[in-house]
């Protein structure tokens, strides 16, 4: 489950840089205001220097260095997320107006629920085992998003987007549709529930009921 870690690392790194840049720019604004006040007090005119090629090349070089660093970080994080371990289970996630269906491939089991009520559909996954999710749609474009996973992918009709998750421990998290898909887009919530492997095998064999 690389998404959470990679997101935390890259988001932390990028926001730190962003805060530093924001602070520097605001500081420079204040310096400019102070300098202007000083000029006015001393009766000095504004600077007549309209360019400084050395300074300009300097900041272009600094910006380029920053961009190289950011691009390398972006590639590194993205590369780690693309690694696909061999999977134990495959689940097809189908979005439709306006809910979700989860089909456990290789078994006859397919579960759904009622979005916009108390009976939200539940995507049940086993802890510690890599599962491939195959995200698709049977009508318009939806997007499968579990904020806890730090990942979302579009669900297209006529196309399957695959990604692999390995959930480290058990738990239950909310999932949402993240692409405008019509009137009840806002109701397309579901649960991601991670159970122990033993519970999961039971879930597969007794028709989608959790004990």
């Amino acid at each position: 489950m690389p998404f959470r870690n990679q997101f935390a690392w890259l988001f932390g790194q990028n926001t730190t840089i962003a805060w530093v840049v924001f602070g520097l720019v605001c500081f420079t604004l204040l310096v400019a205001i102070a300098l202007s006040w000083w000029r006015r007090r001393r009766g000095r005119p504004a600077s007549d220097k309209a360019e400084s090629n050395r300074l300009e090349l300097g900041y272009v070089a600094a910006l380029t260095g920053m961009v190289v660093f950011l691009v390398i970080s972006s590639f590194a994080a993205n590369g780690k997320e693309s690694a696909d371990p061999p999977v134990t289970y495959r689940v097809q996630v189908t979005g439709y107006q306006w809910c979700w269906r989860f089909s456990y491939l290789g078994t006859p089991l397919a579960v759904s629920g009622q979005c916009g009520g108390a009976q939200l559909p539940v995507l049940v996954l086993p802890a510690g085992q890599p599962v491939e999710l195959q995200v698709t749609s049977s009508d318009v474009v939806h997007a499968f998003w579990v904020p806890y996973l730090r990942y979302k992918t579009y669900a297209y009709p006529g196309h399957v987007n695959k990604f692999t998750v390995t959930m480290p421990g058990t738990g239950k998290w909310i999932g949402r549709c993240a692409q405008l898909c019509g009137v009840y887009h806002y109701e397309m919530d579901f649960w991601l529930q991670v159970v122990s492997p033993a519970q999961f095998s039971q879930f597969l064999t007794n028709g989608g009921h959790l004990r």
Partner: protein
Amino acid sequence: MTAEVKAAVYPPPAEDEGRDGLLGWLLTIDHKRIGLLTIGTALLLFFFNGAIALTMRAQLAQPNQDILSPQAYLQFMTMHGTGMIATTITPLALGLGVYLVPLQIGAPRIAAPRTTLLGYWFYVAGAIMLIWGFLTPQGAQSGWWGYTPLSNSMYTPGPGQPLWVAGFFLAATGMILQGVTTLWTIFRLRAPGVTMMRMPVFTWAQLVTVLMVVAAFPALLAALLIIVIQRFDPGLGASNAWNFAYQELFWFYGHPVVYVMFFPFVGCVAEALSTFSGRRFFGYQGTVLSLLVFATGSMAVWGHHLFASGQEVNDYFSLTSIMLTIPAGVEYFGFLGTILGGRLRYTTSMLFALAFIPQFLIGGLTGILVANPTIDYQVNNSYFILGHFHYTLLAGSFFGFMAGFYLWFPKATGVMLREGLGKLHLVLLVIGTNTTFIPFFFLGMRGMPRWMATYPSGAGFTTLSLISSIGAGIIGLAMLVLLWNIYVSARFKKLAPPDPWRGQTLEWATSSPPPRFNFNLAYPVPKVRGYAPLFDLRERARGEQARGEQVRAQQAAEGR
């Protein structure tokens, strides 16, 4: 200046001179009137689309509200997005160019004025059709992206969506026409002495803007045709190719358009900063180059809108998107370099330009964040993205527009705006935009998707949404102050001199408002030796005065 050159630059036939009244405006071939019509119409629509946004914020102030039905919410949301982008900010951006570019390059007119006027009327027709579609019972409900198959006749039947397609198409076509004529004006009608590298920063910003309009807007027209085709044969919506092709074409327009809605306002900020710093814009050549690089790069980043599509080359678009930091940074260094050496005058225009710097920066820096696929997977299509682009558009671009508005209002109308009310407008707008849009980032991090007509009470969205809605109210109040300012200034006129701000560019050499052909015998085009011609003249006058005093002092010392 030879007689031949003069004839080429000042064509005397005054076909519509003297025609006034309503018809004189609606059929005008004066670029100033076309520009003011475009800006005025766009400002009216800003209030309309803003009122729609306030209604949406009212609906979202509390969970499970019923002010707007889910269907109505989507119609409002679609109108707000499409209206603001296609019929408000883009026309504000290009209308400024239609008004100002000929003045700034010392031209008497715009090239192909009738085509420019046709562009305005296409835009008006587009805006009318969009609103007409909005007023039909079902309206258009697929957002300003209009993704297929949601926008096809199977999922959004009724006349609202086709009217949306037609309106968007016409408005974009109108903007292409205005962009082309502005481009041609810059290439063909510059006054003697105004070389490309002596054009003001604003005109350069307009040049790269209209280059993007010409290069990117046709892709939107092609994309909209896909919706038209799918409305006749909605079965095509089941095939990925038809839907993904739409998304690619749409974003090939959809990303450059955000820079179309940004560069002209960068130009406004640059003019305000250099004027009110009392010096030339710092790093002119670097800024011009960076604008060109930025515009070129903007054509190669559209795929970052599709990082989560699973069908895009994410690393490539991450690379190109992050690379835009370089030209953007150069422009920021230009801003900062200008004010660092300046003696600042804190007019309303200057304060808007100064406020633009940190406010837009929030949008820009979060933009670098979402150029990383790893971060984008999480925050894309969430309120975080809404925060990002509302910072660029409202807290950024619109502040740049207001800097230009307060700067050039006296030039265009001959009347000064009230500075006190202007500063009140600024303060309220700063408070309003930040109160509204900072919560968006946190809502996104908490997992709130875009386009939600309402939200459940236990989801942790309530407090932040309420704060944001209060902020939206403050923005509304700020805009009422602007209206009040315009009303007071028009009712109790303080007449504007030709150059109320000690301006640097050619439009300040002519009267306020300028004569029909911009410059005449009373207000000729001065000699242009640089990109800040009026500043050059003042500098030289000061130099001559100083030399004169020196000579007189010397003569006195020698006892003559």
